[in-house]
């Protein structure tokens, strides 16, 4: 069990029987009175945010979430299929549940899926992913001015800005946390 003084950014707690994550947090203490903890919380099921102020007597249960290592298998219709690395059970996530991660999911990729009462609610990818460029405008020779980026499309359908020398069929590395191009990958 957590007490209010344990509250901090990214703490996951149960409120009204739903899991919340603390996205912003401020300590307030008037005069010689009791401490207050002003929080911005995000409901991990619905994504909606709310403000709540807690007092030092308030206590919380940790969010009943569980993180599992899974392998991404394939996409079918609007569903993304994963396999639990331990039990080999398969689960399907909707496009909404996968969120921005869909831009970087490639088959057989290892990732972490966050579950609430066996229901997948979030997905964490490796920090870096190597993907093949499927569409790229041609390199105009001589254009070597740095900072002159061009948009390309990679195998997942994601659009990203890259330096002009990147060509179709090449592999590039992307930082999944920022969604930005990092480097060209030579096989």
């Amino acid at each position, binding site marked *: 069990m957590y007490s209010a003084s344990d509250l901090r950014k990214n703490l996951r707690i149960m409120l009204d029987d739903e899991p919340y994550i603390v996205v912003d947090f401020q300590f307030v203490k008037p005069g010689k009175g*009791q401490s207050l903890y002003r929080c911005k919380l995000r409901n991990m099921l619905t994504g909606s945010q709310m403000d709540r102020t807690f007092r030092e007597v308030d206590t919380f249960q940790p969010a009943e979430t569980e993180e599992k290592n899974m392998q991404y298998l394939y996409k079918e219709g609007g569903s993304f299929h994963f396999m639990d690395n331990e039990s080999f059970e398969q689960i399907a996530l909707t496009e909404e549940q996968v969120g921005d991660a869909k831009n970087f999911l490639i088959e057989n990729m290892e990732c972490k899926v966050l579950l609430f009462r066996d229901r997948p609610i979030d997905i964490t990818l490796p920090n870096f992913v190597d993907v093949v460029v499927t569409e790229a405008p041609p390199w105009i020779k001589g254009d070597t001015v740095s900072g002159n980026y061009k948009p390309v499309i990679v195998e997942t359908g994601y659009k990203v800005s890259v330096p002009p020398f990147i060509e179709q069929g090449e592999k590039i590395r992307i930082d999944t946390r920022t969604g930005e191009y990092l480097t060209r990958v030579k096989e």
Partner: protein
Amino acid sequence: MSTDCKLEDRRRALETRADILHATRAFFLSRGYLEVETPNRIPAPLPESHIDAMPSGSWWLHPSPELCMKRMLAAGYERIFQIAKCWRERERGPLHLPEFTLLEWYRAGIEYRQLMEECEDLLLYVSIARGRGSRVSFRGFPIDLSKPWDRVTVREAFEQYGSVTLEQALAEDRFEEVLALEIEPRLGVSRPVFLCDYPPAFGSLARTKPEDPHTAERFEIYIGGLELANGFSELRDAAEQRRRFEKENETRTRRGRPPYPMPETFLDALSRMPDAAGIALGVDRLVMLFAGASSIDEVVAFTPEEL
């Protein structure tokens, strides 16, 4: 590396801090006060419901120099001031550091109303010593420190700015919440405010009004919504003080905090203490006010996280 870059950004605030400390000392010396130093490490901190002292061996680092300074007052030191480092556990936020600086002063023969006037004089003195006249700008508010400042009772403040009355807030244990979130931001936005006359439960070392036992002679200074200082007429009744400490310790125990040893040497001295008023003023916040800083981090050389 990045920490030391911040040090350079803080140079002006740290210079402001030094100016304020010099001016503060000059003010009190000009009024016949003695600057004192009392031990930072003590065997029995104030038993207060909501303040946790930081353990230091089997003793504690003082959360304020209040107890030792009042023993000096009882021994005949009639005007004393101290600029002391103080420690309070688990207090960290944009206005709180677990290690911070308090200015405390005590004066025999006065009560809280005269102490309020001395506060007006001190802040005006410091402001003028900095060469800026009586005007400061804080949180976007242009504020005039000229006296007299406004005096608002806690009851009036709840009526004027609160969503519930003082009685409702007390009954629902929402006093701090309404005060901090609804009332404080609106106090002292054009001139400083003394918020005064607290319910006795919120002034465990303050005297109650001779004509009204339900009101403690305590005040807080607010400037631009910033709580700056807490002062009061001192309670001199040792038996009553012991009862209040016991009650504070009961609250601590009920809320899962360790009770503190009874400060017997202080209680013993209390019966010899003259009528007096005293106050604790947050020096870091005073620097914030004059430096126009939005966070306490900006007015110290290092925060604990940067060490």
